[in-house]
């Protein structure tokens, strides 16, 4: 059965006008329609925060739970019913501050969740405090003299937790976001999608460099597995290896030619180069940065149950009792 956006839409979103979440939501509806899993077979689970309101606007099953626990709750949901497509939606505070522990462990376990991280580098719902992705020195209501701490870089955290999928998109970029969401769904295992999303009220302009189409043409590179890493309005730039890192070069300058440009390998088990790409400040890498197959936790749980069922001779409670040392008391 084919679905349309409308099959996944519900209600009237209450985010501020211009909030990046509006764009993301519309893209998620489209992506889900294209993926084609029925709303009844889909669960969208969020924590707390502006972006965590999202399940209220989905015509699927959903939960808008408690702060930071979305990944843990989604884990139980997926393991108990592996047939469901489970999407977890968190902001940078929900996912990486209070929920940081669950974020890393969901990645380590490689449970088949589509984990959306809407990153606006600010606490919006509590009205403007710095978040764990705010840059050092960031001035906010809770850091009037600037923060004195370094931010998390979500890709680094994901890779450090042995994550197998990491992709990035800009909330306003419909094709880019939809492509990433579909790839996340198709990847079996924990799939982290960092969505760069703008908070118009408390952190306006944080992703300015790539928020518009023109900006992305200048400042972003769309990574595609198996393709040369070329970017710029006329593909005049490329990514080359330098020492243990990567750098952007202009083709034809300093002796660089297209032959020097790296080919993106999202399937490479070793995440070293993928991490370098994810951490580039210019250009900002978009698209699927890492997509490596590995056994998923939910599959392994199910397989182990089947394996033990075949091996053991007891399969119900009455038979379980008989596995004990039993004595009989007679009259």
């Amino acid at each position, binding site marked *: 059965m084919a679905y349309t956006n409308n099959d996944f839409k519900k209600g009237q979103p209450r985010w501020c006008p211009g909030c990046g979440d509006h764009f993301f939501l519309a893209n998620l509806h489209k992506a889900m329609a294209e993926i084609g899993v029925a709303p*009844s077979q889909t669960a969208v689970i969020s924590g707390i925060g502006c972006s965590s309101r999202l399940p209220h606007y989905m015509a699927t099953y959903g939960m808008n739970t408690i702060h930071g626990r979305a990944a*843990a709750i989604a884990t139980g949901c997926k393991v108990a019913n592996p047939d469901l497509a489970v999407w977890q939606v968190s902001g940078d505070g929900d996912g990486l501050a209070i929920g940081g522990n669950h974020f890393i462990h969901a990645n380590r376990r490689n449970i088949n969740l589509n984990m959306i991280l809407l990153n606006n580098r600010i606490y919006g719902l509590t009205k403007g405090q710095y978040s764990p992705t705010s840059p050092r020195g960031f001035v906010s209501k809770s850091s009037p003299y600037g923060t004195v701490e370094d931010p998390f870089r979500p890709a680094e955290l994901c890779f450090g937790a042995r994550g197998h999928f990491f992709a990035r998109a800009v909330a306003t970029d419909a094709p880019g976001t939809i492509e990433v969401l579909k790839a996340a769904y198709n990847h079996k295992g924990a799939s982290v999608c960092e969505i760069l999303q703008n908070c118009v009220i408390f952190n306006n302009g944080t992703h300015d460099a790539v928020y518009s189409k023109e900006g992305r043409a200048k400042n972003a590179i769309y990574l595609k597995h198996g393709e040369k890493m070329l970017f710029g309005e006329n593909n005049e730039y490329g990514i080359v290896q330098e020492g243990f890192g990567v750098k952007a070069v202009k083709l034809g300058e300093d002796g660089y030619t297209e032959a020097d440009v790296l080919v993106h390998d999202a399937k490479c088990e070793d995440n070293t180069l993928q991490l370098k790409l994810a951490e580039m400040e210019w250009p900002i890498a978009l698209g699927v940065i890492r997509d490596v197959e590995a056994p998923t936790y939910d599959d392994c749980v199910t397989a182990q149950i089947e394996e033990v069922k075949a091996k053991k001779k007891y399969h119900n409670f009455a038979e379980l009792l008989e596995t004990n040392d039993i004595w009989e008391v007679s009259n």
Partner: protein
Amino acid sequence: MEIKEKESVVVRFSGDSGDGMQLAGNIFSTVSATVGNSISTFPDYPADIRAPQGSLTGVSGFQVHIGAGQVYTPGDQCDVLVAMNAAALKTQYRYAKPGAAIIIDTDSFGPKDLEKAQFKTEDYLGEMGIDPDRVIACPLTTMVKDCLKDSGMDAKSISKCRNMFALGLVCWLFDRDLNVAFNFLREKFAKKPEVAEANIKVIQAGFDYGHNTHSSVANVYRIETKNKVPGRYMDITGNKATAYGFIAAAEKAGLKLYLGSYPITPATDVLHELSKHKSLGVITVQCEDEIAGCASAVGASFAGALAVTSTSGPGICLKSEAMNLAVIMELPLVVLDVQRGGPATGLPTKSEQTDLLQALFGRNGESPMPVVAAASPTDCFEMAYAASKIALEHMTPVILMTDAFVANGSGAFKLPDLKDYPAIQPPYVPEELRGSWTPYMRNEDGVRYWAVPGREGFEHILGGLEKDDKTGAISTTPENHDLMTRKRQAKIDAIPVPDLEVLGDKDDAELLIVGFGGTYGHLHAAMDELRARGKKVALAHFRYINPLPKNTAEVLKKYPKVVVAEQNMGQLAGWLRMKVDGFVPMQFNQVKGQPFVVNELVEAFNQIINK
């Protein structure tokens, strides 16, 4: 040889942690249970995992109480103490009754052993004031070596059989049929028949040693069996019984069983037990923390499983947020609290009842949650089943309270037949509501219907924000919040629970003893003792704490004197005072991390009666 008829006897096996005292104790209780004696056991582990051999801190004990009639506790003190080394005698003698028989392995009382056990002289019996006539002193290690010298076993394996010699001696002392022990071992070591036969040989040697050498000095006890309930039995610990209760409930309800947990003493054995039973489809997830244990269970519940999370008090602190989420989302969940000493890390291996008010009130907002408590190791099965039934049929998290004493102790468990247990019928949303259903529509019991993901046409969202009663949408309307608060409360209040049972002199007691949970055995034994002394005493023991049984006020107000005895500073007493107008009981409170001592209870209650 004198044969003493006894109503009940307590045996305490003690030795190094590696001496196999628990196995010896288990076999002895099984052998006794087989002839129809009632049994109650309790292990006493040291806090250290592997203390130095022969040291005082490395002693572990296993106490077995066997009785002709019902026994309710593992016993305050023992009639027979087995001490496998000097340190065991030193630390465990305090648990022996005056006049108790003491079995020691003299091979483990050498100068070094005595030094490690901090004896000052070689006259260790004199030092402890023990009458040598009461001691069965035998060179146990030497005899075991002799017995197995032709077995081809290495010295270490031979030494591991010492516990069986002690068991043989105890079996002789109580005139037990060794065949049961033999069968037990043959089954336990089915894959290593040579080990089974070696152990059997040693038990027989221990039995014969007693028969040949000590027939002139020791009594032989006989425990007759009264009130036999015919049937098939197994020995079960509280934690295992709890795990079995969940398995049984899931099967009865036709649901997957999901456990989200994080290891914590003394609850971890429930995780261990359930992890074994994948052939029953049980899913266990050892989570990254207590929070995720509960949160993942909430997720599993949403997905349609019987969801359980297991922990002890410190874990409840961390889980309370996700428990509250289950309260407002009205999803079924069972939260197991195997209580230990607190606050904070407190006394991890010891037993208390200090989490009751936390269970009742330890969450933000108006957060009513059913609370039930298991009264004995075998009752853990019944209460785990009952907690699951309440959770699933009333769409609510339920707290099941046990404690370290009940969880680690064991009793004879009559194999249940699930046919005898009530059906478990979750309120799945009826098909005819398709199209008109909203998530907070309720059935005639005030219970929200359950629509499990996967069902087409019932897609909905739940969450931690207050919802509109009618539409299920987020609502901050004052009247609606008040209404929803009342509906959640009314739903819990309406849960039917069995009436409070009064035991003993229910018509004319001068003192009513009141307790809850794991102190049942001790309170019952204290009541029995007082009644044997001619006092009129009754016992009302709570297993259902929220909601309280309907007849609670009637029972509590019926007797001239009431004492609430609990292992905390008065939490049940406070709860009852809150729920029963004008009820002001006397209190007996102990927070020692140890089970009640029946004699102390008897003395305290006697004083109350005589006041």
